[in-house]
């Protein structure tokens, strides 16, 4: 997903759009939509920060920061008491440790494959023929969560299909999938020595079944932002705002790109 947050004194636009293989074009379109919502032209935007996997593919961005720094910044803005952040995204999972002053002091990311990410749930939901928005609530109806022993998404998909054929109820399978994913996330973030308050962000924050499994396994209460998908974009906007304020304070010029939102040709 491509997200845009436009900030003035507060959030004046916040948009979530799809990401396709042509990220640069889409960053473009989602930006246009956000500008429309804010009733601004691109020329009126003082500074633009891009983050996430596609950060280098945003031609009109003035600066790039990693999603680790941006999520932390966004979350600390929303939850000043945050010490541990778990970002469960579509492609990967990250754990971030924050100190009292809101600074990142350590982080972990899952390795290479999507086994520990939201994509895992997407694939399983697809196999079971249920929509992604409903898997969380459905899994909460389970009384006997199934055991999913495969870590690899592809093998787990086959395992779930086989269990389904044996008559294991849907809710038990989904609960099992959430238990399995929560187990993997826990093992990873526990390397950071999890401290309260724990915030879950990213698409995973919208899945109540996953959150419950995670909370139980971590033995911690979990807080979730109202809109978990935009905390990275919010952090990026806040970082941009800080850069502008600092430049104004020190009376140094701002280095910005040309404000053109035309279509970008990808070779």
């Amino acid at each position: 997903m491509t997200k845009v947050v436009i900030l003035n004194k507060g959030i004046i636009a916040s948009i979530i759009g799809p990401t396709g293989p042509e990220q640069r074009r889409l960053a473009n379109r989602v930006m246009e939509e956000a500008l429309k919502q804010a009733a601004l032209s691109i020329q009126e935007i003082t500074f633009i920060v891009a983050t996430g996997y596609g950060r280098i593919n945003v031609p009109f961005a003035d600066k790039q920061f990693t999603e680790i720094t941006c999520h932390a910044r966004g979350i600390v803005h929303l939850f000043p008491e945050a010490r541990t952040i778990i970002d469960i995204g579509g492609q990967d999972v990250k754990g971030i440790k924050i100190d009292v002053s809101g600074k990142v002091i350590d982080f972990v990311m899952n390795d290479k494959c999507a086994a520990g990410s939201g994509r895992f749930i997407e694939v399983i939901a697809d196999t079971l023929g249920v929509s992604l928005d409903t898997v969380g609530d459905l899994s909460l109806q389970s009384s006997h969560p199934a055991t999913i022993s495969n870590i690899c998404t592809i093998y787990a998909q086959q395992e779930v299909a086989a269990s389904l054929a044996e008559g294991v109820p849907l809710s038990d399978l989904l609960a099992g999938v959430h238990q399995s994913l929560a187990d993997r996330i826990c093992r990873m973030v526990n390397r950071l020595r999890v401290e309260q308050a724990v915030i879950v962000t990213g698409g995973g924050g919208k899945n109540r079944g996953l959150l419950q499994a995670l909370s139980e396994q971590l033995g911690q209460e979990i807080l979730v932002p109202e809109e978990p998908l935009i905390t990275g974009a919010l952090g990026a906007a806040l970082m941009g705002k800080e850069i502008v304020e600092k430049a104004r304070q020190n009376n140094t010029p701002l280095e910005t790109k040309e404000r053109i939102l035309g279509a970008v040709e990808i070779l």
Partner: protein
Amino acid sequence: MGDKQSHIFDTVKNYYNNYGLRAKELKGEGKQFIGYVCSLVPLEIITASGCTPFRVRGSVHEPITRGDTLLETIVCPYYRSVFDLSVKGKYNFLSGLVIPHGCDSMVRSFSAWSYGLPFSYFHFVNIPSVCDESSLEFFDAELDAFRKSLEKFTGKAITEEHLRQAIRVHNENRDKVRALYEMRKADPPLISGTELTMTLTAGSSLPIEESNGLFDQILTEVKGRGKSPLKKGPRIFIDGACLDNIELIKLVEELGGNVVADTICNGARDHFPKTEMGGDPISALSRRYLGKINCPKTYRENKAGTFEGDIASRFGDIGAYTKEYKVEGAILYVYKYCDPFGFEVPARKAYYQSLNIPLLPLEDVYSSGTIGQLRTRVQAFLEMIG
């Protein structure tokens, strides 16, 4: 940069990109090159035999293909890549190959190398796993056996004088590397990590005298620089095994960090320890290679009796380097399936924590295909400590 200045780094780049170029030229003139992997092969003995030691490299840009039909994929990806290039004939100009007991991958796969490659000389050096008096005694005998096998191969005796002379020029090489490392102490450093690793890699493909000459020229060039080619940025330490390519270091430097020191085999681990002069040369070599090369494959007794004392004695060199080079953050770069380093990761992490130096542990597969994933981690780390 003047014409003459860029010229010497062009030579380095050429040797780095066309690895083995000089060896192929010199082979035409009748020189014999003996390939080796790992820091634990006593190069002085090869030099003393009249042959030239040549460090065989892998390539992160070339997918492992033929190598995987002969070796299982449980072998570390770095070593598999070196093997893959070798069986594809990249190093066919070599006359022989020496492999030490540097890790399980090396000892278990030695026979695959000796069956699969067309060299007339193969030798396996048995490196003891512990370092005490009896192992040193054993290693003396082992090095003498290595010397005899090379004598048999070349048909010429390796005298004590040959050995002493070889020890002298190899020590000179190490002094020059130290002098190059001195150039990293400025902030920003006068020589980038990318330039330095490229230079050392090029050097390991040359006869030792030529390598000495090359390092001298680089040193003159760098000393002549009015100012650093780099901008100020976090001073980064690279900790790990053999990094025979510049990709990770280049990435760190592209993202604004400056690589200023390391423990890598193709860096401080290989080049910092010197061999004692005077006395019995074989015994001096066995003391250097077993006693002074700080590789996790060697077990050293925990004399302190405590965990803190143990990690301080095992990793004290890291602490000294980080102080000497004013390190602000460290990257522990470990290859997947690397057993010597893999087992040590928790202890190393604890040691960095005791030094109060932020650490980014990375596990990688020796392939340029993972650069994107590394980029996010390295950039986030630099943002964190910057």
